[in-house]
């Protein structure tokens, strides 16, 4: 089961011929992911690495290959257009890796996606991984830029705004012999496609997921919203960590969305919301896996 994607998911890559897109398409192919198409306007008809057909439009790629998900590796200025092209082509899932998209572009994208069936993950995110059964978790579905080998197939769901902090949590689990159902990086921008709560709900409904690690950071109130729902509805143990307790107010900490402004979005408020909701709070980022496993009696 897992969520969002599985080893059979047919993936297309928007921006497959750029340096970044090329590198990560190669890694996804090596991981065993079903990369069935690439899209680069003007390069339709060519083959990527002698095996993946390239199309001029997403619609054509979908028609010819039956792709249902896409990963976006295009420059920030073209990302909003790329997302909506994926939506228009009727994809189930669009994962936007691109960092640096103007916020107002995402405001318009979100508005345009209302009522559409496509789910967006990102932007400014590491992507989605459902680990496979093979060596170093190969044979799974890797969309984006996460290192595949740190994963292990299993039953813990991981959702996070930050890339490297996701890897940290995944690695802590894998080193303890505990695998993951799906790992989702929702991205560090103030306007994104899927929230912590959207992903938590999917994990709650997924029989393969037995426990959840939720990693948040300063800024906004998405973690508080998720915590409130978890308290009322979540049937699975959730442990979490909030990054940015030491961040000075009013400063953007790398991620466009990681900012305490007007006294709102502090780590203290988010940690308090986690605790009130019965979410296990890791005292340090080194103890994310341990905190969850303790709650699960392991």
């Amino acid at each position, binding site marked *: 089961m897992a969520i969002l994607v599985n080893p059979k998911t047919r993936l297309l890559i928007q921006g497959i011929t750029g340096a970044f897109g090329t590198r990560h398409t190669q890694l996804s192919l090596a991981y065993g992911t079903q990369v069935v198409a690439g899209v680069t306007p003007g390069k339709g008809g060519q083959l990527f690495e002698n095996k993946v057909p390239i199309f001029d439009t997403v619609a054509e790629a979908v028609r010819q290959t039956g792709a249902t998900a896409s990963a976006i590796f295009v420059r920030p200025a073209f990302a909003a257009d790329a997302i909506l092209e994926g939506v228009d082509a009727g994809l189930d899932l669009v994962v936007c890796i691109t960092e640096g998209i103007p*916020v107002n572009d995402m405001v318009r994208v979100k508005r345009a996606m209302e009522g559409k069936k496509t789910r967006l993950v990102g932007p400014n995110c590491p992507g989605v991984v459902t680990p496979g059964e093979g060596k170093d978790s190969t044979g799974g579905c890797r969309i984006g830029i996460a290192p595949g080998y740190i994963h292990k197939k299993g039953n813990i769901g991981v959702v996070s705004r930050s890339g490297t*902090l996701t890897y940290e949590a995944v*690695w802590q689990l894998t080193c303890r012999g505990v695998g993951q159902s799906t790992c989702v990086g929702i991205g560090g921008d103030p306007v994104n496609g899927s929230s912590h709560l959207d992903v938590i709900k999917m994990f709650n409904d997924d029989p393969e997921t037995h426990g959840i690690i939720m990693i948040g950071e300063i800024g906004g109130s998405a973690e508080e919203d998720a915590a409130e729902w978890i308290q009322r509805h979540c049937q699975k143990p959730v442990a979490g960590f909030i990054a940015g307790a030491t961040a*000075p107010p009013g*400063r*953007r*900490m790398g991620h466009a969305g990681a900012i305490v402004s007007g006294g709102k979005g502090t780590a203290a408020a988010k940690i308090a919301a986690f605790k009130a909701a019965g979410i296990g709070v890791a005292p340090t*980022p080194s103890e994310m896996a341990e905190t969850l496993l303790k709650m699960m009696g392991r």
Partner: protein
Amino acid sequence: MNLHEYQAKQLLAQYGVAVPAGDVCSTPEAARTIAENLLSRGATLLAVKSQIHAGGRGKGTFNTGFQGGVKLCKTADDVFEKARAMLGNVLVTKQTGPEGRLVSKLLIAVAPHIHKELYLAVLLDRASSRPVLMASTEGGMDIEEVAARTPEKILKETIDPAVGLMPYQARKLAAGLGLQGDLIGQAVKLLSGVYKAWWESDAALLEINPLCIVTAGDAKQGLLAVDAKLSLDDNGLERHPDLLAMRDLAEESPLEVEASKFSLNYIKLEGDIACLVNGAGLAMATMDIIQHFGGRPANFLDVGGGASKEQVSAAFKIILQDPNVRGILVNIFGGIMDCNVIATGIVAAVKETGLKLPLVVRLEGNNVEAGKKTLAESGLTIIGGTSMADAAQKVVRAVAAGSKP
């Protein structure tokens, strides 16, 4: 990126928003000329306003002891004197920190006869992913305090980005602010101009505090943006070369400007343990874990996902320019990035800078064994950390040991 008040007002004026007549200058002589010009056109009271990227200017103090970064004057001579007292001196306000900011520009503007002060802002509402227009009758005050004490005095209109601000929404806000008669029409025009300025310049925050009801010469009432603050979305700057040209590097920390040249994200903090990390989330978490074990982080530094040897070297040089730094923690989770490249960069940087401070390195991920070997065989005193917690404890201990007399 932030703009100065005078730049924000220039932008607002282009969108038909009324702002007090005035001009910017950088010498007392020029201040006098602007003042003479405004007085000759009928102004009776002028404001001399320090242009720095920080609030609380009016109640600030200069390093010379001169009180107030905003002064009211009736004559050109007085404007000249006040300008001389401000220009070239450092103004300390509650938002600048003790180091203050050098005042090199002044806005000389007509000080209107104010009937009432209101508050107006446009910003992103993250919960709805839509812009929101905020207004309040409590102008000229700290709006966060107003929101905390009397939330009912904050009016909000969420804007549908598909249609923009509709006139009825502007009328609702105008009514909520208690505006009547002619002022309602003026408010609709002003609000739509303010919203358009925000949207079209890819702004993060546009704040007009105070927005004033003023009595003009003909005794008619009008709306005037007496102060303005504009922060831009850095991601949108690429398509606004005109706004990017307004960047004032003097307002930014020199180390942060230097870091940005190498695509490094650096923010200086007050502590003594420097950190060098890949990824924003992990960088924040590294600061947190240093504090958890009793240390104080000296900076936030994200070298990004694909750091090169050159970037690591530049990062070391930048963190070592902070005189407070007494120890360094490198925390790299090299998922895709090769740990050995990072290790080679660290060794080169340590040799190049002749580093004497304790250095703890935690490497994890791709090609980590080769990376650890490179560090071990370098002949340098580099303390290895097996996990984030282990590395943080080691650097905190090393710095504490180093500070004993």
